[in-house]
């Protein structure tokens, strides 16, 4: 059996990759995907702890997160489509209408 720590470390690495993606990448869609990666890292953490503690409540919370993430992705993609219609670009560095 794989020890629980391995899952936790994998989740932490995934979370770090997600954070780096948000900070370093300039394309709105890639940033959105990085945020999804962070959410999934949190889910993996929940499931790993659930297995360690033999507690199914952790899995219930993970399902809830999946539902919320779907709602968030729907709103996020709608916003990306909206901005693409206005600008024909999804590059975040070009969003400078309000820089003073």
């Amino acid at each position, binding site marked *: 059996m794989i020890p629980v720590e391995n899952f936790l470390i994998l989740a932490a690495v995934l979370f770090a990759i997600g954070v780096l993606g948000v900070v370093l990448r300039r394309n709105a869609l890639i940033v959105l995907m990085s*945020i999804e990666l962070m959410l999934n890292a*949190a889910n993996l953490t929940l499931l790993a702890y659930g297995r360690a503690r033999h507690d199914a409540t952790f899995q219930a919370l993970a399902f809830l997160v999946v539902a919320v993430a779907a709602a968030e992705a729907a709103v996020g993609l709608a916003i990306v489509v909206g901005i693409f219609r206005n600008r024909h670009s999804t590059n975040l560095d070009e969003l400078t209408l*309000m820089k*003073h």
Partner: protein
Amino acid sequence: MSFDLAELTLSLPLLVVAVGGVLVLLLEAFSGRTASRAWLAVLTLAILGLATALEIPAWEAAATPRAIYGGMIAVDRFSIFLSVTIFVGAGLSTLLAGGFLREHRFEFGEFYALILLGTAGMMILVQANDLVTIFLGIEIMSLAVYVLTGSWRRSAKSSEAAMKYFLVGSFASAILLYGIALVYGTSGTTNLLEIGKSAVVTTDPVFLIGTFLILGGLAFKVAAVPFHMWAPDAYEGAPTPVTAFMAAAVKAAGFGVLVRILVTAFGRPSLTFGAGGWASIAAALAILTMTLGNVAALRQDNIKRMLAYSSVAHAGYLLVGIVAMGRVGDEARGPILYYLLAYSLTTVGSFGVIAWFGSHGDERQHIDDWAGLGARHPAAALAMTVLLLSLGGIPLTAGFFGKLYLFKVALMKPGLVPLVIIAVANSLISIFYYLRVVTAMYFREVGRATSPLRSRGVTAALILATVGTLALGLLPGWAIDLATQATILTK
């Protein structure tokens, strides 16, 4: 887990707002494409009014705080006081939205549904007694507000603001969620009260990391420096009634949940005090937030952006209250609640004047556009003056007593004197840029001609906000009494 009718009655206001939101959404779907949406605004106000009325019996019932729905939701006066503050923000924003949406030609009924659903999320948030409820409340609130921010689809600024707000907001939510997963995993419970009592060693690094991630995620939501960079752009680009809603209601909900989680889950001395305790970190953030917000506001020529930075600065003053809560004790919660009420009323009013001033898709936010307003529209200029003086904390206004009570409670701990001095110095700096608008309105030559929007709703909102600000400033006693009664949390 038990589920009985009595618990359902205790959450009646929340049910009214949530079901009302869905109802407005359905009515919009079944009304004609070209029909006016003014009646949906009226319905929204009626729903918010009903929810406010239902909070009155709830206030009595909450005299003894308790937790319902298996401990997920707290029933106490603290959450009722904040819910009503949120209703004030939502109601005034709805009044502003009617005229604003019609004038700028993007009137649609979902707007009001989203205001109600966002309000429901905030109510869940201020009542949340469990990490899961906090996450759900934050998401329900934020998703509604992201869409509202981007709702002016023809405006490039609005969609840009929505994009930035969404990306930063969901980044913060993901950080918060990872923090929740770590705290839940190490302590074995998501209930705030049980986390506070759990036997988990608070030196467990994973638990501490989780704590900081949760608090960091919440700091994003209240726009505390260094997590504030989204706020100026989101506030400036959003349709002005939405900005008012964000500045008032989202901030009140954010501080509500922050107060509760710090007291119940992370209230033990080892987490509160010491160099790494949240009281010290909040003090550092308070100084940074006040100073950066005010210094940045000084440089703005766009009034809406200036008020956006000013709202960052106000988050800093509120953080002084949070520090006082850690160092002095529970009595600091009354001033925080009063400050949130006073600030919500004032900030909705000041953004309301900005919403009133633009017309035909032109928002007139540059300070030069405001020159000579006092001569042409004396009533509006007077309202703006009162509201700005209140934001600056000048006596006889709500903002003055807000700051007075907040700083007075902080002074009960001698160690906090330097923090309060910095806060007072910041209030003085802020008066400069508020007065800059006032001088432009009264002492400068008339700029280009203006035709502010005509709407009974907007006029009513401005009168209510201004009179409310003066009423809280002249007779603060009753609100202070209510806020003091509302300091007890479910424990």
